[in-house]
């Protein structure tokens, strides 16, 4: 059962990745091109020789982007299926479709939105190559912290539910998440490596496009996986009742 849900999750992730790729081509690539044009202009002004192209821009924006988003989509879809396998009927009392939508919403907030507020996506030429290690470290610290806090907050809400009711329990859990993440956003060091002359409009559009790509991906995975899982789980239940009827 878990294996077939995992496979379905990865397939759903690939389809969602195709949709996200379409979105990325239309809204993301123009911003990447503008950022690279800025980078080249700066290098030229500084009298630096242009960097040799290991992979052509056309490949980066086409096959490379497609590969990146599809592999990412398949991975998120697979992890989604594993989380779903644990949560369904255990943490969530909703049916498969409702559970999948809630996981997608929680995942988008905890994995994408909240970490992005502190360390947002940045186009080429924003970001110093010498600080890549520190920036990568901080990015993953924030990511892990957000996911761990989200899991703990959901656990807290579940624990409070029998005594205080669902409404109050979810307010308490949600507050716990917001407070811990606010402290993390306050305490972790800022990263500000935007070049002085870089267009604020390009930066904004790039970041909105990046969030849009993730929103498309997570929405598509949540909705499609729910439908696919419901069919699979109901099919199993149907078969079991047939077996039971036959053995009686």
């Amino acid at each position, binding site marked *: 059962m878990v294996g077939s849900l995992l496979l379905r999750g990865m397939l759903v992730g690939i389809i969602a990745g195709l949709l996200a790729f379409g979105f990325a081509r239309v809204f993301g690539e123009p911003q990447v091109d503008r950022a690279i044009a800025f980078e080249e202009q700066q290098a030229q002004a500084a009298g630096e020789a242009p960097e040799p192209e*290991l992979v052509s821009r056309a490949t980066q924006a086409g096959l490379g982007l497609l590969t990146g988003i599809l592999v990412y989509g398949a991975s998120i879809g697979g992890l989604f299926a594993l989380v779903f396998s644990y949560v369904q*009927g255990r943490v969530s009392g909703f049916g498969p479709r409702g559970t999948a939508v809630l996981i997608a919403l929680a995942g988008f907030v905890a994995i994408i939105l909240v970490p992005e507020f502190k360390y947002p996506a940045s186009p080429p030429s924003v970001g110093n190559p010498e600080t890549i290690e520190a920036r990568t470290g901080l990015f993953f610290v924030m990511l892990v912290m957000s996911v761990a806090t989200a899991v703990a907050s959901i656990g807290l809400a579940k624990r409070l539910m029998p005594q205080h009711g669902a409404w109050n329990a979810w307010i308490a859990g949600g507050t716990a998440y917001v407070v811990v993440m606010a402290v993390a956003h306050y305490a972790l060091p800022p990263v500000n490596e935007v070049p002085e002359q870089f267009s604020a409009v390009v930066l904004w559009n790039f970041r909105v496009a990046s969030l849009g790509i993730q929103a498309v991906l997570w929405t598509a995975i949540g909705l499609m996986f729910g439908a696919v899982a419901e069919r699979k789980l109901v099919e199993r239940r149907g078969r079991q009742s047939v077996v039971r009827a036959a053995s009686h």
Partner: protein
Amino acid sequence: MSEIALKPIALPAPIPVRELLPWAVFGGLMLMLMIYFVGAEEGATSLIRSMYVHEFVHDGRHLLGFPCH
């Protein structure tokens, strides 16, 4: 009669943890390795000695929000 009418629709039973665990460990590791290659290989850390993977998935890495050069 009303008891039957108000009964909630039966939900699928939870999948036993024993069945889930091996998939979660091996599948989870493999999937996270895939994300690593898209998101971080040949950036802060490097398993392969080239810049090809980095350059190939370059646009995806930026647009998916991973830190990049």
